[in-house]
């Protein structure tokens, strides 16, 4: 079992199987909807994991890119008359461009300086979204026209389950390819020793930026899916709280573990769904989870589980 969790390509196939077969076991469309949300969040977290878990950087403002993707598919069709699929691509390009421009100076920073700079970036994006009410509908948000492809409207939990599930499988496949490549090795080298990486010919600044831009792309696509599914967008898609949630999902599942990103997303998405009675206590539970897990299981659930299983097999 431990080896299954660690062999990358088996993971893609396993995930594809799970996505294909899971709907047969879900009792109602409520569950289908929840799982679709897990897939969408996992996509964003996967990108963040590439940046934090593999390349060893930190971003406390990643919801900013999520929000850009979200508002692109709202503003594009509504104000610019773009077809939704084009607006999604433009949103992703915009997020990538922003990451490219902002990333260069920001990634020169390290540790908590980098954390706070990314936090500032995320909050500024959220503020702009919230303030430019003419374009974005302001704090109350705006409706998102549904995705229409060749005359077919993409509406409903089942449809979005498949769209997000397939995209997640593709996203995982790309991530795994990346990790087993010179770029992936460069990321991991930078994480372990920037100095040694430099001296071996790795252009550290270039690869940090690459990781940042890639993670922005993942987040933006996830953001677009999120609001296209929902039909409505509000500024809290880009909020500081959402950025923190993404980070917690990544850390909870296990930084540096692809499977971990999915597990972390699942936990934080499923928990409030099944704690609806305790809606008021959501913050308390979230805060407590963060504290407890980061103190006792800082490596994350999947790495802890896999070493436990590995030890038992020995």
């Amino acid at each position: 079992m431990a080896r299954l969790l660690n062999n990358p390509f088996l993971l893609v196939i396993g995930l594809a199987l799970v996505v294909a077969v899971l709907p047969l076991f879900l009792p109602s469309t409520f569950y289908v909807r929840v799982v679709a949300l897990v897939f969408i969040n996992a996509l964003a977290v996967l990108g963040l994991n590439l940046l934090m878990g593999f390349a060893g950087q930190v971003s406390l403002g990643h919801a900013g890119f999520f929000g850009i993707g979200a508002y692109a598919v709202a503003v594009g069709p509504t104000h610019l008359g773009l077809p939704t699929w084009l607006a999604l691509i433009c949103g992703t390009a915009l997020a990538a461009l922003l990451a490219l421009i902002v990333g260069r100076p920001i990634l020169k920073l390290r540790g908590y300086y980098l954390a706070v700079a990314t936090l500032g970036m995320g909050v500024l994006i959220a503020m702009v979204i919230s303030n430019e009410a003419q374009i974005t509908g302001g704090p109350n948000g705006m409706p998102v026209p549904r995705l229409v492809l060749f005359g077919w409207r993409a509406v409903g939990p089942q449809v979005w389950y498949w769209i997000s599930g397939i995209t997640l499988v593709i996203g995982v496949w790309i991530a795994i390819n990346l990790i087993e490549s010179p770029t992936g090795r460069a990321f991991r080298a930078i994480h372990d020793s920037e100095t040694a990486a430099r001296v071996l010919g790795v252009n550290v600044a270039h690869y940090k930026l690459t990781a940042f831009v890639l993670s922005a792309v993942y987040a933006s696509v996830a953001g677009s899916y999120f609001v296209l599914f929902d039909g409505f967008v509000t500024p809290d898609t880009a909020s500081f709280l959402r950025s923190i949630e993404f980070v917690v999902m990544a850390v909870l599942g296990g930084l540096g573990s692809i499977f971990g990103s999915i597990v972390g997303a699942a936990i934080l998405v499923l928990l409030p769904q099944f704690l609806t009675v305790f809606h008021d206590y959501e913050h308390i539970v979230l805060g407590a989870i963060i504290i407890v897990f980061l103190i006792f299981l800082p490596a994350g659930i999947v790495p802890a589980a896999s070493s436990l299983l590995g030890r038992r097999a020995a």
Partner: protein
Amino acid sequence: MSILVVEDLAITFGGLIAVDGVNFLVEKNEIFAVIGPNGAGKTTLFNMVSGLYSPQRGRILLAGEDVTNLAPHELARRGLSRTFQNLQIFFRMTAIENVMVGRHLHEKRNVLSHLFTLPSVHRQNRETRGKAAELLALVGLTDVAERPAGALPYGALKRLEIARALATEPKVLLLDEPAAGCNPVETKEIDTVIKAIAAHGVTVVLVEHDMRLVMRISSRIHVLDRGRTLAEGKARDIRSNPAVIAAYLGGTGAQEAARAQS
């Protein structure tokens, strides 16, 4: 033309003059040692030559080209590589992966092709892995290739760093205290590795405290004391140089050196 020229290098750290106008030439295929008491500025010198520090004065020439102030990855591209006194191993990666990172400059680095499972990327991964395996064999680490580096003993890690540095196919290899913390058996292994490297046509510049190792393998020795050059010459000349003996080797040191040569 000397393959490495260091001209009047100097650097100060907040009032402390760490290196004060050091000059030397290193010829191709030499094993050139830099020795000196603790605090003499040897690692600082290395850090300047490998681009980690910016010298405040002076020049560095690599194969005739002025490379002063170039970034470390630029120097790597021009054939300079190094190991670290305090081990900068990629602990979370396996031994062979560590060496594979060293092949980075010789790999195709198009990110787009890395995102998709193109056959060319697979082929390149296999080549890189093969090359890395060869280097691991050179330093005697073949049976720990797939172990995480964090699980390896100290002596093995020292050799791993050398294999990794060699993966860049350098012209000049800077070894920063390769035998530090090693027992006599491990030191003998390092000794063999360094001689093999030099035999393969790589110029080696060595910082080291272990006098037996230095006297045994160096072509020429450069002595630093408090940031300045004290002496330079062949092993037997340095061994019998009174200023060096006084400042550094001392009574027991000179005896050890004499024993090493016999």
